[in-house]
């Protein structure tokens, strides 16, 4: 028994090192090679799942005669550009409103009202609990009659669409901004600004916002990616958005929807590349790019 306990000797620094190095030198090399094989297989299978549908879509989009006709026809369609522009503008307004709502809130929670953090976080999680189709159901019931008959006019419906999208953006916008605020010393910055005579508005606009650039841009790109492809809410509010346009096109045309699908994929791709470039060097955790399915 006592002989089987060289571990006591191993506590001396030199012995420990020798155990560690022997474990590193001898053992892992063959295992890693074996591991590598299954790792490659899993990786290639996963990659195939990602890529095959895209290649098929590209293939179908190229079937139209003459070459690239599916693209030229789609881009020439006024509704394509119209719906894309509409969704893009709605997306930009959503981002602006979301920033205006979330930044002061997250700032205030950190600085003055930490006891309300659970309440605020609960509210920002609600959009996960209320799926878009349920949200739009409730919005239509609540805002299609006086005193706030949003859905009775185009402008009102578009405003309601923006508000709905702002709620969808809340979970990741809030978390992104909160993580950004954690990284800077807002208390000191605030006191420094106040001692120089700044008001709250100046502090938020000129001190906090510039320091949150990366967090805000990540949130903004994710919001845009979601808003531009969103279907359920836009469709039930009867808005001329990109999602409903693509759905309509998908039912009516052969090759054009494939071209537009790839455009839509490209836009999502651009947004995600932008987010990962922004998050570079800040650790994978600061990149929030999960918004969920539709």
């Amino acid at each position, binding site marked *: 028994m006592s002989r089987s306990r060289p571990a006591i000797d191993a506590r001396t620094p030199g012995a420990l090192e020798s155990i560690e190095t022997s474990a590193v030198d001898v*053992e892992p090399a063959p295992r890693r090679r074996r*591991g*590598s094989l299954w*790792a*490659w297989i*899993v*990786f290639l299978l*996963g*990659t195939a*799942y990602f890529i*095959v*549908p*895209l290649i*098929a*879509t590209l293939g179908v989009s190229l079937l139209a005669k003459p070459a690239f006709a599916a693209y030229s026809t789609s881009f020439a369609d006024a509704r394509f550009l119209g719906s894309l522009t509409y969704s893009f503008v709605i997306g930009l307004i959503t981002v602006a409103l979301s920033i205006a*709502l*979330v930044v*002061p*809130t997250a700032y205030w929670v950190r600085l003055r009202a930490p006891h309300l953090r659970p309440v*605020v976080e609960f*509210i920002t*999680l609600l959009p*996960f*609990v*209320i*799926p878009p*189709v*349920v*949200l739009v*159901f*409730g*919005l*239509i*019931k*609540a805002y299609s009659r006086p005193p706030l008959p949003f859905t009775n006019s185009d402008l009102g419906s578009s405003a309601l669409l923006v*508000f709905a999208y*702002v709620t969808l953006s809340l979970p990741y916008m809030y978390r992104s901004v909160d993580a950004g605020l954690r990284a800077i010393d807002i208390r000191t910055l605030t006191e420094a600004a106040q001692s120089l005579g700044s008001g709250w508005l100046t502090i938020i606009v000129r001190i906090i916002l510039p320091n949150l650039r990366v967090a805000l841009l990540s949130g903004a790109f*994710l919001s845009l*990616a979601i808003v531009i*492809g969103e*279907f*359920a809410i836009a469709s*039930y509010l009867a808005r001329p958005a990109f*999602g409903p346009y*693509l759905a309509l096109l*998908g039912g009516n045309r052969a090759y054009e*929807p*494939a071209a537009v*699908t790839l455009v*839509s994929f490209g836009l999502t*791709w651009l947004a*995600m*590349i932008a987010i990962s470039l922004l998050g570079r060097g800040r650790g*994978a*955790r600061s990149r929030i*790019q*999960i918004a*969920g*399915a*539709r």
Partner: protein
Amino acid sequence: MSWSWLGLGPFFLFGAMFLGLPLAFLAFGSVADNTTGAPTVDNYAALSTPLVVNAFRNSIEISLVTAIAGGILGFALAAAVILGGLPPILRNALMTFSGVASNFAGIPLALAFTYTLSTTGLVTILLKNLGLDIYGGDFTIFSKLGLELVYLYFQFPLMVLIIAPAIDGLKPEWREAAENMGATGRQYWRRVALPILTPTLLGSMILLFGNSFGAYATAYQLTAGGIPLVPLAIGNQISGDVLHNVGLGYAMAMGMVVVMAISITAYTWLQRRSERWLR
């Protein structure tokens, strides 16, 4: 009592108007009688009609299947790039691609799979030329199985994104310690790594469940209502009272909120538990 909450006034007002009020309308509608408006539980009792039960059963089944399959696939993929000794650049590529794929859902996703695996899909034709007719049996891309294949496209990338930090959190020292005591690779996974990862794995799969339970546009475009699902049924109820029972529509929406609330709560709780080991 401080007045500090006043700074949060705009946020609370927004939350009340665009999350609270819509939810309140549905909640009150679900417990009000259709004609008299008197309090009632009849609408919830009506959830037991075969139509509604069928929709819930389909939704739950598809969400379960894609959560488990997507969870296993996503875990394997994340483990492969993190622990499998693949070049680091592949890991970054996979993470970015997972970000795209988990957000690439809805109408375009459904269309992409139609071009791939419908009767005239390019992969179907390719396989047929190779002698494999996937439409020889019962399969169609518009069936339940087809819908599950499509949902997997956003499910397992989501799994990759949420499980990767947990796999990163497995300390090499644990593996070395296990090996120094003579454990094989399999024993290390069974006795050390998997028990530590279990809460995260379970929580992530629950999140995947909620993710597909709430998905609407993909199923709408792909199946055109061919498979009764809860979100589609609610959508139909918005367009017109297809259930011929306004209150039942509200009760169904509330049922969906309850399922989502349970899954998010379970996810949050399990996530918190797993932070004990993985930080």
